């Protein structure tokens, strides 16, 4: 298995991180060495093993569906990189 430039460009799209050609070349090398190391897992037969999704063997607790934080809009908007007081602002999406 090896990761090529095309795969890097694909992953870059999926992860919404733009990469130029120079950065992509470097990532090909880095990811291949990491995946070479990861491939070690293929030595193990795991056909009859249950996947572990959580180490905490507890069932999730239910809580009543009530609003805990009230009137915090101003606080939330405050950290936005661009705002018009009431909304988050993003580049135009509809032509």
């Amino acid at each position, binding site marked *: 298995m090896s990761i090529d430039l095309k795969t890097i460009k694909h992953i870059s799209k999926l992860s919404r991180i733009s990469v130029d050609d120079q950065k992509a070349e470097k990532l090909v090398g880095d990811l291949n060495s990491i995946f070479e190391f990861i491939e070690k*897992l293929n030595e193990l037969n795991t056909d009859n093993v249950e*996947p572990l999704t959580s180490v905490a063997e507890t069932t999730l607790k239910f809580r009543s569906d009530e609003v805990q934080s009230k009137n915090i809009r101003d606080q939330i908007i405050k950290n936005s990189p661009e705002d018009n007081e009431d909304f988050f602002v993003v580049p135009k999406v509809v032509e």
Partner: protein
Amino acid sequence: MLDITSQSLTSLVKNIKDKKLSSEEITKAFIDRSEKSKELNSYITEDFSNAIEKAKKFDQSPNLDLKLPGIPMAVKDLFCTKNLRTTAGSKILENFIPTYESTVTQNIWNEGAILLGKLNCDEFAMGSSNETSFYGNVQNPIDKGLVPGGSSGGSASAVSGQLTPITIGTDTGGSIRQPASFTGTVGLKPTYGSCSRYGIVAFASSLDQAGPMAQNVEDCALLQEVISTYDTKDSTSIEFKRNHYSKELNKDIKGKKIGIPKEYRVDGMPKEIEELWQKGIQYAKDCGAEIIDISLPHTSYALPTYYIVAPAEASSNLARYDGVKYGFRAKGENLIDMYEKTRSEGFGAEVQRRIMIGTYVLSSGYYDAYYLKAQKVRKLIKNDFDEAYKKVDAILTPSTPSSAFKIGEKKDDPVSMYLNDIFTVPVNLAGLPAMSIPAGHDGNGYPLGLQIIGKAFDEQGILNISYAIEDKINFKNKITDWWIK
């Protein structure tokens, strides 16, 4: 004047309770030393003037029943602190000011402690040397040009350099224990679910845990007692009987069964680490513990498993940094272009690498081969520990396969950097508690640590074993204050 900054937390608390020192005196002493220690670059954000105000206020009507009465402390910059910038070591959060407080830090302030500032760390806690921080490298107080370990590198440096009496870090794959080992300090990674993750910037949610870092085991026990609480705001927080760790701390470990896993004897491990391990075994025996050889057969698969699970969770957790609601935003021609440029300019190289690994292993066609496979191996690793704990009460290993390395030495080789965490990662995958205590020095005088791994929820057990062994070791950190002009 009584030297303040070299005192342990326990001693400072006693001096405050005995009215021999005021909170203001203590706070000013740590601030003064921190001001002289800029070269260590331990802090990202200082909050010194507020700290002095809070200390003065504390002294006006001191509540001496609290567990951390008027004690100043700095915390890793991964914990959200209300109204004080929280960066997670990243450019993307350079201007982020949380509107809420993490549960763990809130617990600390509720017991009377005072925030000094926010400590440097690897970007989003991804790193083993603090070199991935957007805010620069951190120096290890042990020697100039040496990494403090990571990701809680600023925390380890600040405790070791006596810029804070205690601190808290987070540990996803060794980020408390490895830096503790590199700086001659004590660090505890609690059982998964012991300390609330609410308000901690998320890296890998099934692995992340907050924990105490201190100069000694006793201080660690006291801080653990403060931070470990059940919290409904964290859906994986677990309700269990939490001990009064500091009150129940004792050195009597007679008859305790301590396992020595043969798989931790890895190729190329320096002789001095093996010798340190043997010394630790002897100390445990001297304390009356019974030593039992055990096997954890899947140990060598832990790191490859971790490098699937952790990046996968990270790629999902870090999807929220899109330049819309908070944090850095780059200009883009349209929405998608803005997302892609924001993330490309806002995240550093290691974080981008891990997001891309995670995205890949979760992507269509590769999920079963990588992510599902890793979850199955994770089960085998946990089974190893479950089997071992039928025979033993705790496990003793070295904390790291080497002592601290030079800044820049491993920066360009991700796999060699990842190998640092070979002894710490299995514990996170299994959700167990473990601590690192300083146990000796290598030929350069750099500290080396021993790791004590416990059964789930048995923080008291490993604290007691560490306390007993610490007493035998009588470790002294070799700090020369080289950075103070």
